[in-house]
């Protein structure tokens, strides 16, 4: 099985989807000849032509609005927003249009498309190349939100997202685009949406993480194990609808919960995860749930490593949680 990084795995998924279905088109800024600023769409323009791999004008609102219309026609658009930080001009089209089209048309017009976008910090990108805005989309009725952490899941989840009948926001953790490597089958396969994965079993504390922060959680868990604390680390993979069964099973087993995410804490996805767990596992909890997150500030440039919930912050949190 070939070794790949996430960029290559996502590229493989796009290429395969475009080969199998002529309706699949890729739209975005710099996705054509240059193959995207992260090279995720490299080579697609050469293989499928400029009509299906479209370098668009620099307007996220225009890209998504047009993609909604294309989807209504019957195409399967896959949009690349160059950085998640640039997605806000398209927010109206995503929230009020894309996410609502099936509902408000009584099911007459499902508007199906996938929006891929790199998220997260740790690349010296400053506020406008580092945000991790999942909560603003999870809050929106009608959207599914996916965030893979490794090449295998990235390919399988993207293929599943393209097949899924609902609109999907596909957040790609750019910090590990190339750092995360692994075996990826050449053939198509699906990683089902709404399925989390226990990536490290443990019995003392449950750690929920996703994207690039999964590696920080695993690092903290390995260090905690040296101190006798066995953390169970779950990669959520699909953020919404989240795999609640896997989470509840784990927390009922460990009695303790630590949630990790890069985004700001207040009203972040961690708030929802903690609520869901408290509602379902209150009498199993041995300690207050803990959130290890980015802070409620804009994403800083120079101090980004202090902002991010890296292993050095996760480790004490899960040791405290396990011992309290």
């Amino acid at each position, binding site marked *: 099985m070939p070794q790949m990084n996430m960029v290559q795995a996502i590229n493989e998924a796009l290429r395969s989807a475009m080969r199998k279905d002529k*309706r699949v*088109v890729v739209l975005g800024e710099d996705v054509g000849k240059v193959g995207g600023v992260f090279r995720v769409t490299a080579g697609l323009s050469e293989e499928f032509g400029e*009509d*299906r791999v*479209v370098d*668009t*004008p620099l*307007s996220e*609102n*225009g890209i*998504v*609005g*047009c*993609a*909604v*219309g*294309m*989807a*209504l*026609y*019957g*195409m399967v*658009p896959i949009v690349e927003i160059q950085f998640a930080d640039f997605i806000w*001009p398209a927010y*109206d*089209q995503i929230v*009020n*249009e894309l996410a*609502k*089209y*099936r*509902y*408000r*048309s*009584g*099911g*007459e*017009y*499902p508007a199906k498309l996938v929006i891929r976008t790199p998220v997260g910090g740790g690349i010296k990108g400053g506020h406008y190349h580092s945000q991790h805005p999942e909560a603003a989309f999870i809050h929106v*009725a*009608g959207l*599914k939100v996916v965030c893979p952490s490794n090449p295998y899941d990235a390919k399988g989840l993207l293929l599943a997202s393209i097949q899924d*009948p*609902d609109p999907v926001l596909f957040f790609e953790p750019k910090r590990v685009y190339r750092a995360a490597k692994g075996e990826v089958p050449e053939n198509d396969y699906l990683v089902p949406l*709404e399925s989390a994965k226990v990536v490290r079993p443990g019995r003392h504390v449950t750690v929920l993480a996703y994207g690039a922060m999964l590696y920080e959680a695993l690092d903290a868990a390995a260090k905690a194990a040296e101190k006798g604390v066995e953390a169970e680390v779950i990669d959520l993979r699909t953020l919404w*609808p989240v795999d*609640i069964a896997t989470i509840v099973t784990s927390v009922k087993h460990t009695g303790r919960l630590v949630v990790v995410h890069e985004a700001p804490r207040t009203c972040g996805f961690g708030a929802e995860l903690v609520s869901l767990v408290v509602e379902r596992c209150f009498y199993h909890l041995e300690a207050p749930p803990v959130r290890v997150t980015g802070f409620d500030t804009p994403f800083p440039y120079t101090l980004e490593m202090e902002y991010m919930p890296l292993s050095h912050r996760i480790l004490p949190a899960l040791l405290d949680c396990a011992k309290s």
Partner: protein
Amino acid sequence: MDMMPDIPATFRPEQPSKVIRVLSDDATLDPRHDPRLNESEVLELYRWMVTTRQLDERLVALQRQGRIGFHVGSLGEEAAIIGAAFAMRKKDWLFPCYREFGAALMRGLPLQVFIDNMFGNANDTVLGRQMPNHSTHRASGYASVSSPVGTQITQAVGFSWGAKIDGKDVASLVYFGDGATSSTDFHSGMNFAGVFKVPVVFLCRNNGWAISVPVERQTATRTFAEKAAAYGIPGVRVDGNDIFAVVSVVREAVRRGEQGLGATLIEAITYRMGGHSTSDDPNRYRATDELKPWAERDPLERLRQYLERRAQWDDRKEQALIADIDQRFRAAVAVAEKTPPPSLETMFEDVYEKPPWHLQEQCAEVLRGPRAPSSHS
């Protein structure tokens, strides 16, 4: 291009005079832009314009009686709305703003389905999920209505752009008002259509007002049509109260699309004779004498005069038509009022194709919980 010296001066002090007009005051047609409609086509258009207006008046009355919650009408704009839809081919799609129910009816939306939407009942195709007039009818190629004023513009562009990539000759007509030209989607949609030569007809119903805000507060350009130049597409001004002119310019725009020449922006000059909707009182921001010149240019009156001069219409036919509309309207309302509201479960359907666990839980919560005080008439 025709001169239109008699357009009311209040409309825009320094507006240029080039406005395409076909139906003159003496009820003759200018051969330069005459769409050469046959007698039955003209009668059909007239009937749909009358139908639209009659329904508008009755729906406002229903709202005033508290029997429906809302209506947003097209009083005075019937020629622009009906004429543009008529000029499109059956395979083309319409992306409405929210004032275009007349176009949907002409394209095949059954009256009963429309009235069910006005009541938001169980037979409403959108299951009472939106306000009245926010209907949908796929069989008529009528896209879903949303309240934000410009969002349908980029969608219309994407729709016919998708058809173009697919190698199919399918155009779209997108309706929007003068207010929507200030929106991001107007700029994005026009720009994308220009760059990718998309066969889309941008129909700006310049009706003078965006709720209470006059056109002078939307733009500093002399016309809306001239904005097209910024996007490399042609812009045309047309007398929006002259249905022959509207049909003519929209047909020409469709032809341009067919020939691979891309999009056209049409500014249909008309006037919103009513309020923005049943929710506002235009007397608070608009002098009533502003209506007078436009009342004299009423699109229905002008077409009726044309038909009467040709002995194709008379009072007896008018009364028969109105009686027929009234009878069909009353029957549809009677059915719609008796139809129950959508079931509670429908609130949770179509959010996704299949309700995920959280919506199943929330649906069960509503079903076993207490009922809200009924707000359904």
